[in-house]
């Protein structure tokens, strides 16, 4: 399968998922309507819609706050900006995304924004301190692929939708439990169905969100390999991330799917032993699988040892 076909298929899936979310929202609102009050269902639907729109509009600054990404001054870290510029030219983006810095020792990066023109890339200081230029470029290529493939757009939507559904389901659930007999006119069976629906809906939304982001990680890896014409660089970068055991000090799980490597990976692997199903809830596929996919498509084997090239922070003059 070529990358183009994969992107097309992925876009189709995205559309289906967005419609799925809309449907799920309708189902939850409908359940509230049947089990409690029709008007309440309509109000919930309307409120959820407005809340979603507000959340999408403010998502840019919200993500920045949740990841603690700082804006850079006009002359700060110019070599890094140039690198981003070059990769986004290779991707044919209409504008170069902004770069923001996250002061954190763990090497990681993320992309955020609804449209390509207003998107930005966040990198941690840890990433600049461990990655040599070639691998850093590959990581930037991964993030720019997310922007080019409209992943950031879809992920923002998915995050917002999942949050909205969880919120109204929660409100509905509470009302059902504590609302009193007045509104329970549908009988015991409907109430039971409503409870099941209300409990399951947020999990369905969460699952969709996770599987969405996992598939996209493979695609962004392949995108980076294509942009730089260097699949090995992406593989090397992932290997370096794999060997690094620092985790993000301030990891907000609600933005976990945005990062290049899961910021909470250690917690997740501990949980895996307890719950076999938990890999379904991971935001990222295991790094080993991602490296294997790159090796297969690029027709190479990664060397055992990492390169000893100087990290990019040296060129940037970072302390």
């Amino acid at each position, binding site marked *: *399968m*070529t*990358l*183009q076909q*994969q992107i097309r298929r992925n876009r189709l899936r995205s559309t289906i998922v967005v419609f799925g979310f809309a449907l799920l929202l309708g189902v939850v609102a409908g359940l509230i309507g049947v089990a409690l009050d029709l008007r309440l269902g309509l109000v919930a639907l309307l409120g959820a819609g407005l809340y979603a729109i507000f959340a999408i509009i403010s998502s840019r600054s919200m993500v920045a706050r949740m990841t603690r990404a700082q804006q850079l001054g006009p002359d700060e870290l110019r070599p890094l900006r*140039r690198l981003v*510029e*070059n*990769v986004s*030219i*290779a*991707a*044919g983006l209409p504008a170069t995304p902004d770069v923001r810095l996250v002061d954190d020792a763990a090497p990681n990066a993320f992309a955020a924004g609804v449209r390509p023109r207003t998107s930005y890339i966040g990198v941690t200081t840890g990433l600049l301190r461990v990655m040599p230029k070639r691998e850093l470029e590959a990581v930037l290529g991964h993030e720019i692929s997310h922007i080019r493939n409209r992943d950031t757009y879809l992920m923002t939507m998915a995050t917002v939708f999942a949050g909205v559904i969880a919120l109204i389901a929660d409100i509905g659930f509470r009302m059902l439990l504590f609302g009193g007999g007045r509104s329970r006119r549908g009988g015991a069976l409907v109430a039971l169905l409503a409870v099941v629906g209300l409990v399951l809906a947020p999990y369905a939304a969460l699952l969709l969100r996770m599987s969405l982001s*996992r*598939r996209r990680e*493979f*695609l962004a890896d*392949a995108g980076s*390999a*294509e*942009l*730089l*014409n260097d*699949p090995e660089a992406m593989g090397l970068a992932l290997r370096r991330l794999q060997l690094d055991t620092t985790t993000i000090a301030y990891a907000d799980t609600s933005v976990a799917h945005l990062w290049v490597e899961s910021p909470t990976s250690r917690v997740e692997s501990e949980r895996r032993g307890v719950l076999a199903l938990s890999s379904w809830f991971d935001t990222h*596929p295991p790094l080993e*699988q*991602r490296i*294997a*996919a790159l090796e*297969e*498509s*690029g027709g190479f084997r990664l060397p055992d040892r990492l390169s000893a090239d100087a990290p990019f922070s040296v060129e940037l003059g970072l302390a």
Partner: protein
Amino acid sequence: MLWLWILVGLLVLLVLLGALGYNRLVRLRNEADTGWSNIDVQLQRRGDLIPNLVEAVRGYAAHERRVFEEVTNARAALQRAGTPGQAADANEVLTSAIGRLFAVAEAYPELKASENFLRLQDDLTDTEDKISAARRYYNSTVMHYNTAIQSLPWVFVAKALGFRAKEFFSAEGDTAPPEVSFTPAT
């Protein structure tokens, strides 16, 4: 009556498919055109840096006339180039001319240490990186566009509709970019 309706249905379907396919070709062609203008912007920027560079070096090594001439001619040839292929060739010539200019500059430590020269050198390296990035994008758009107009059914009508194959931005001896094939592991 029934066969008439079937015929009409088929015709409508055919027109619809044709319109979709045509729009796709237009989109691919536009992408390639955008890709080319990205390269053009960078080539222009590179060309604009060269007079300054020549002046900077001339201040220290006025007698190296042949190298200056070479660079100036290469720059003029690049600005005259009409097709992507010619531009790529001219760009190659310019690159090696600039290389010789820098080799001349090596002999003048004062020049090499001057802030103006260092900045020019930095800007030139940056433009070269950007040219090669823009070239990767342009070449991949051209590949998609060319593949589309050379495959069925468009191969028969593409030319009549004004879709002509585009040239890669690659100097003689360069190879087209490889298509990355990709299968997810899950």
